[in-house]
């Protein structure tokens, strides 16, 4: 398209150069003859004779030179008529006599010669103009391409086979810090201090063989900073397939390279940590196992031998002694429970969660039947609302409900008519709550509720090991949810837990 448009401009340029319209050119022919007449007539008046012809020759020559063949013929005819009429005897008549012939022939020959010269000149002129226009077009085109290359953020530069830089774009200026005028004409190797990943010979061989080379180079900028660039070199060949130049585009990958190295380091660190963690986990497991096995045995012995002792001396022992022994037995039992709860708690942290869709309503029925066994003889008004279906570990979620319900049952013991409400709230997440009208708690200590072995009541007021709510929190955290509580002393408490909704998780499992 660019070339076509250029061609059109060239054509119209040539037409303009040829000197306006045809009519004007003939007009100029007439004018030139008239202008030649004036000095000729003036000289005749002062009796200079036989000097008229050169004026007409000049008029014809000028016409032929500037305005072409047609106007030249017109000027010859007009010049001859004027010459014949004004200067050749008989004067003021157009009668053609023999002595006029040489002047007429000279006029015609001169005109032919002038026209011929004019034609040759015009041809040269035309060729010259065309060549100039073509050159101009090429220059325009190149300039446009060069300015396009300047627009890119990548650095682009060209070097010849002796590595002398011949083109240097704005991107290269920005990347390497050298201005185009500083870089062009310099040897690229000296300017950039390039370090190749392969030897320079290998680089050249590859480039000459395939015509291209991709790779990572280390270079030094004008400011002396060492940078890493991703480079692509292409070989330019001339019409005879001889390599003439290397075009190289490159971009700065220093930061990326640095990040890659950083990531690599972090990964190694992570691998090391995870090995450490695994070892710690193993240790912890061994510890839990040991607690489970070894701590229980002496406890059993304490209880067992105290029982045996009680049996042996029951007849002689006094009230005080039997009270002591009862205390020993109670403590042993309590410690047994503590160990069991602690182990259960640690197991939740270690066990793999096996997730499936779990209907909380179904789960609540099971939990209720378990809790009701321990609350026989109590008067409890249960209020049960709609509960969501969650995606989670069934047995763990069951433990959550059992713990929350038995907590509510426990702390409403002092109430004549206990009220326990279980329900849920819809929102971004599914929120389930258990509300009771029990003894409640002081909100100032709400943060202690979910800690291991944390208790807000005196041991003899409400039994318990202080593990239940910690277990609840641990399970809910493992499900990606959260737990919190609201309460007021003597006005009941509400425990909430939230977990991500089942729909999203369900969709996830289907796409997996």
């Amino acid at each position, binding site marked *: 398209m660019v070339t076509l448009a250029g061609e059109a401009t060239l054509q119209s340029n040539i037409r303009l150069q040829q000197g306006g319209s045809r009519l004007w050119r003939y007009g100029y022919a007439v004018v030139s003859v008239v202008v030649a007449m004036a000095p000729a007539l003036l000289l005749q008046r002062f009796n200079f004779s036989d000097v008229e012809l050169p004026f007409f020759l000049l008029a014809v020559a000028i016409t032929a030179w500037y305005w072409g063949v047609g106007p030249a013929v017109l000027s010859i005819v007009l010049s001859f008529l004027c010459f014949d009429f004004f200067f050749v005897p008989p004067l003021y008549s157009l009668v053609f006599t023999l002595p006029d012939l040489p002047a007429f022939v000279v006029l015609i020959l001169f005109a032919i010669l002038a026209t011929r010269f004019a034609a040759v000149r015009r041809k040269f002129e035309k060729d010259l103009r065309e060549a100039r226009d073509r050159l101009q077009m090429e220059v325009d085109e190149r300039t446009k391409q060069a300015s396009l290359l300047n627009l890119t953020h990548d650095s682009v530069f060209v070097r010849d086979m002796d590595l002398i830089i011949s083109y240097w774009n704005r991107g290269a200026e920005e990347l390497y810090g050298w201005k185009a005028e500083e870089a062009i004409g310099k040897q690229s190797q000296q300017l950039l201090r390039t370090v190749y990943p392969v030897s320079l010979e290998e680089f050249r061989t590859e480039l000459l063989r395939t015509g291209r080379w991709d790779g990572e180079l280390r270079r030094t900028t004008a400011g002396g900073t060492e940078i890493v660039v991703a480079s692509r070199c292409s070989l330019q060949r001339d019409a005879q397939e001889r390599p003439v130049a290397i075009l190289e585009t490159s971009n700065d990958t220093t930061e990326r390279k640095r990040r890659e190295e950083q990531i690599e380091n972090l990964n190694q660190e992570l691998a090391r940590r995870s090995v450490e963690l695994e070892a710690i986990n193993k240790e912890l497991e061994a510890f839990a196992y040991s607690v489970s096995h070894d701590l229980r045995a002496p406890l059993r012995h304490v*209880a067992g031998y105290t029982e045996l002792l009680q049996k042996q001396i029951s007849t002689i022992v006094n009230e005080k002694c039997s009270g002591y022994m009862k205390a020993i*037995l109670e403590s042993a039992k309590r410690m*047994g429970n503590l160990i069991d709860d602690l182990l259960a708690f640690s197991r939740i942290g270690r066990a793999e969660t096996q997730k499936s869709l779990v209907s909380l309503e179904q789960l609540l029925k099971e939990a209720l039947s378990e809790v009701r066994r321990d609350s026989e003889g109590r008067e409890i008004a249960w209020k049960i609302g709609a509960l969501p279906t969650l995606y989670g570990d069934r047995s763990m979620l069951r433990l959550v409900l059992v713990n929350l319900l038995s907590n509510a049952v426990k702390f409403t013991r002092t109430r004549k008519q206990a009220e326990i409400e279980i329900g849920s709230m819809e929102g971004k997440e599914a929120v389930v709550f258990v509300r009771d009208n029990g003894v409640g708690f002081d909100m100032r200590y709400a943060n202690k509720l979910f800690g291991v072995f944390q208790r807000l009541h005196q041991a003899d007021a409400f039994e318990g090991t202080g593990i239940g709510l910690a277990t609840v929190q641990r399970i809910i955290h493992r499900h990606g949810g959260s737990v919190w509580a609201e309460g007021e002393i003597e006005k009941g408490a509400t425990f909430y837990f939230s977990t991500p909704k089942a729909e999203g998780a369900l969709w996830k499992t289907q796409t997996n």
Partner: protein
Amino acid sequence: MENANKLGRILLVEDDPKDVELTLTALEEYNLANEVVVTRDGEQALDYLYYRGEYKMRAHESPAVMLLDLKLPKVDGLEVLKQIKSDANLKMIPVVVLTSSREEKDMVASYKLGVNAYVVKPVDFHEFVNAIKELGVFWAVINEPPPGSIRK
């Protein structure tokens, strides 16, 4: 060894002497204490079953039940269980794991190896005594032991 040539219907494998004493006390109530052969680690238990070492000379009869602790010196309980259940001559002997461990992996491993019962020793002495008594009575009295076992 006092019980090197002793025969009994119950083979108890237990390293803790206090547990041995408490177990025997529990079994006394049903006069089953005399029926108990005690081995103190896994190796000794296997020696007994294979008539090796100090048990070389004992009569060729199998116990009616074996009460096996899991945490034992030398050869541990699971290893003993594995040996018994993979031996064609011994695999019929009923084995009851009697342990302090409530760990699920122990339980699963025991059942996978073919244990006949898994009992966690209760901390509470009454419960412990009841559990041992019931075990003794069931396996040594009520249950028909496999052929080749000692009978009363």
